[in-house]
């Protein structure tokens, strides 16, 4: 799950940077924040 989530975040962020799309980049950032919270609370 951890690898999958992080892979998705990296993919979305890189795609967002290259195409400069608000939705792709924004979704990447949002999932990244969720992953960080899960990590800090010890759930991932």
């Amino acid at each position, binding site marked *: 799950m951890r690898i999958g989530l992080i892979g998705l975040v990296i993919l979305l*962020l*890189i795609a967002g940077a290259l195409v400069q799309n608000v939705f792709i*980049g924004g979704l*990447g950032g949002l999932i*990244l924040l969720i992953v960080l919270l899960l990590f800090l609370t010890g759930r991932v």
Partner: protein
Amino acid sequence: MAIDTNNTSATTAATFNIPVGHRISWGGIFAGVSLFIALSWLMLLLGSAIGVSIADATDLSAIGDGLGIGSIIWILLTTIIATFAGGLLAAKMAGTADDRIGALHGLTVWSLGTLLIILLGASGIGGIVNSISGALGTANKVSMSVIARASSSEVNSGLPESVITSIAAIIKRQSARIISSNSSGANSPNQGEVRKAIESLNAEDTGAITSALIAGDTEKARSELTQRSTLSKAEIDSIITGAEQKVQSWSKSDSAQQVKQWLNEQFNDVRSAMSQSIAGMAGSQLSSQEVNRALQQLDPDIMLEAGQYLIMGKPEMAKNVLSVNTNLSEADIQAIVDGAEKEAQQFIERAKAELNEATEAIGTYTQAVLWSAFIAAALGMLAGLFGGHSGAGAVRRVYAVQR
């Protein structure tokens, strides 16, 4: 590593062996942050050397092309490598074998490093050590310069000073046309000659033509010359062709000064030829007076003021300025302003379109920089976490070998 809350604290400690005391190693984090900043600087230098660095704020043509894909990739790569290495070093220096604590050290390196870069950026030296900071600084500088240029006009019309000067030139040309068409007398000079004498090119005109020539844009130089003077096509062609040959033969460093000097010589030649021609033709008292009157009344300040009113869309005020400050007849003023107004409007529209284009290009550039900065920071955080995680793994491997 979940803690069983049903057990007593003593049992819990014995079972899970939770480390006591501070689990954070500020020494390790300091080392990690140092490495992060040093690596950022190193990668920035390497980027500059291989030509994918951030465009210079003075290089407007590069900014117009937008932030290149190479620059975006370089910003991402720099941040990821620097934070990964920083996190790795911090976790190794902390000596923790716990993956999670290692990752937290990496996260702290990223956050502290980012904070430092922001502080350095705010103090104006961030661009020297970090590509994101440099890119943001560049975008900021360019935006500021465009805003400054757009607001430099006194009438706050959003047009640069050069437009007002050009409008003044249009009024001047129109005035010359009217005055010369009204000049009379048996020996009055040829209308075209009067016009040419009045419109002899000034320093600003020379500057505009020089910059076009230096940029290698001969078409622009030709159109500037056509617009700013009434030289014949043959005269313009000979000046441009001569200048092209001269520019090619001069080195880059001194071409600006030399082209300017050479152009001035050319214009002075044309100017003196015209004056002599007029002096020869203007035999009678009447025609000399008319030429003098025409030249004296075309005060640059008045032309500028009238030009500003034309830009503001107030031709009546432009007429008032001319009638108060000159001895021109009402009919003459009417003809001058009406004639200049149409030409001025076209010029203003063109200048506004150019300004909008420049602003749009800078907006796109700034947006690209901000996107890159955001994605780089986000990926940097992940890289920091991974770095710390790997650092803890490395510590475990080292201890395993030692055991």
